[in-house]
């Protein structure tokens, strides 16, 4: 592919050395196919000290430079008074293919998770409020879009209940939430748990905090 003029052996020699240095410790010798179908000779590295494979330079990058240079033409050959044609091609670039299905799944999970608002409960109560039911109805629509994903419902309480009773109260809240969502026809596998008052989102000793802690929190598996 390199059609050099060969005017000066000296320059060719220097160019070859530069090429070898540029390829560094790359020991890969695979044949890289170009889009045009022409072949690029694998770089020869039979001489010179070989660096340890732990070299930080990404091998693909080094290889690209060594094989074709930035303009796809291999090692520089120097100027010539009667230059020959040098083919210049776009850089071959292997990419890590995106798993579109995975991206779609993650986007769907994140989009659905955003729709899953915390729902809040009255003091000492585990019955759903009108507001809570409204929010869960919206959540159910989102959950139906990702019905293969597992849903974990956490029940939480404010600090005005005793520690051990709140564990049970939190589970009652989570289970009321589960029951309502299943009634709306979601088909996600559902698990419930309770943290009582062990994981408050707000720690002031006043109602402005308490209501935020009396909540059911919905988490899709794999989401934050």
């Amino acid at each position, binding site marked *: 592919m390199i059609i050099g003029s060969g005017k000066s052996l000296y320059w060719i020699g220097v160019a070859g050395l530069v090429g070898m240095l540029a390829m560094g410790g790359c020991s890969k010798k695979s044949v890289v196919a170009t889009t045009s179908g022409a072949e690029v000779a694998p770089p020869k590295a039979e001489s010179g000290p070989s660096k340890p494979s732990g070299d930080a330079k990404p091998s693909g990058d080094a290889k690209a430079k060594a094989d074709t240079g930035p303009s796809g033409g291999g090692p520089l050959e120097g100027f010539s008074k009667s230059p020959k044609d040098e083919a210049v091609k776009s850089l071959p670039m292997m990419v890590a293919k995106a798993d579109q299905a995975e991206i779609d799944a993650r986007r769907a999970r994140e989009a659905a998770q955003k729709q899953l608002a915390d729902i809040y409960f009255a003091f000492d109560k585990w019955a759903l409020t009108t507001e809570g039911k409204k929010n869960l109805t919206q959540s159910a629509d989102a959950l139906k879009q990702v019905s293969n994903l597992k849903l974990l419902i956490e029940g939480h309480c404010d600090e005005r209940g005793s*520690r051990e009773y709140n564990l*049970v109260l939190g589970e009652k809240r989570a289970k009321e939430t589960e029951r309502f969502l299943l009634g709306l026809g979601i088909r996600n596998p559902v698990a419930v*748990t309770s943290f009582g008052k062990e994981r408050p989102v707000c720690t002031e000793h006043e109602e402005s905090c308490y209501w935020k802690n009396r909540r059911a929190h919905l988490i899709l598996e794999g989401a934050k």
Partner: protein
Amino acid sequence: MPPLSGLGLAAAGFVISAAFVVSSGAVEVFIEATRGSIQKIPIAIFPFQEGLSLNGQAPLEVLKADLRRSLLFDVADLEKLGIKAGASSAPDDESRRRVGEAGWAVQVWGAILPRGEDTVMEGTLYDYNRKEQVGGKRYVGSPDVIRQMAHRFADELAFHFTGEQGIARSRIAYVSEKGRGKELFVMDYDGYNPRQVTFDEFLNLAPSWSPDKQHLAFVTYRAGKDPQIHALDLVTGRRRAIVALPGLNITPDWAPSGEELAFTTTKDGNAEIYKVDKAGKRFERLTNHWAADLAPTWSPTGREIAFTSDRGGTPQIYLMSADGSNLHPLTYKDRHGTYNTAAAWSPKGNWIAHVCRDDRRLLKLCVISPDGQQSRQLTTGSSNDESPSWSADGRHVAFSSARNGKRDIYMINVDGTGLERLTASGTFNDDPAWSLP
């Protein structure tokens, strides 16, 4: 006799009764004629002879604090009687006479001495009325157990005069926040020597001692969303799951026999109380109701269990036999308030402490007799108080409170006096569980 300051309980509305000192062999057994009221034993603790540097440790102060806290003794203020602090030898005849004539017939002195690498603590008990040494103790150990020696000597005195084991050697397990986790700790009953015993970096809750003090049962979220009940062997460091049923497995309470535990599980869909043998093999269901039944606590005989149920609409304390029969309410919404939970049965059997709620919706401690005839609020103030746990002598309750900002462990006498803060580590401390001595 000095003024009977020990009878200050009268102010709290208790019946004053005579107390008898009965001589039974080597042990003078001091009998409480009725519960809740005792006459204190006047005792004089002479300054200890200190034969080595104690690096700020003060066994004399530990001993005096133990004796005061026991509520069994009226400790003399010797400086008022002209006895100087600091001693190089046992008290002379004149000092013993002056203190004895002032009414302090029970006299104690001691010494701390080096013996090689070890430390020796000697204590002598003297009866001024009989003009004779009743006996002595000599403890030998490394210098870092001097507090333990003083605690042990205090319990020997309690045992000599009451036939009871004392509480000075007991320990308190509790939960302390470490980063995002809550870990179990164990400290001496006076708040000294806290040691961390779990390192999960996750939630551990609700410790319960085995009667032999070797094991702690507790709730752990280590396995994921379903909290389990594990037991930690404090001698071997081994840990095993006792209850790992689907759902919440919470509120373990070790039976007085040591052979089984009562606990709560939601595996049946709602909270029910079960028993399980300590191996975690045989389960027995005790409650069966659509409402929540939880937080069992054994009576000291092991024949009854008190627990929380919201079957009446609000959480209240109920009693049942240990096989689940004879279930009946102990607290009532109209008489005891809308919220009564977290029952803890006194090892003496005469009281059940529990969390109640005042009219400001603050959690407080209340006590109620198992027959429901007597009940009252034990703590006051403007913070949430909870997680009551009894001392073995039935005269103190450890609990948690945020009354000084951060949540900490406190103890209070069952008559409402003697509030004492036990932790002050600047973090969240909760869920105390008081061991037997």
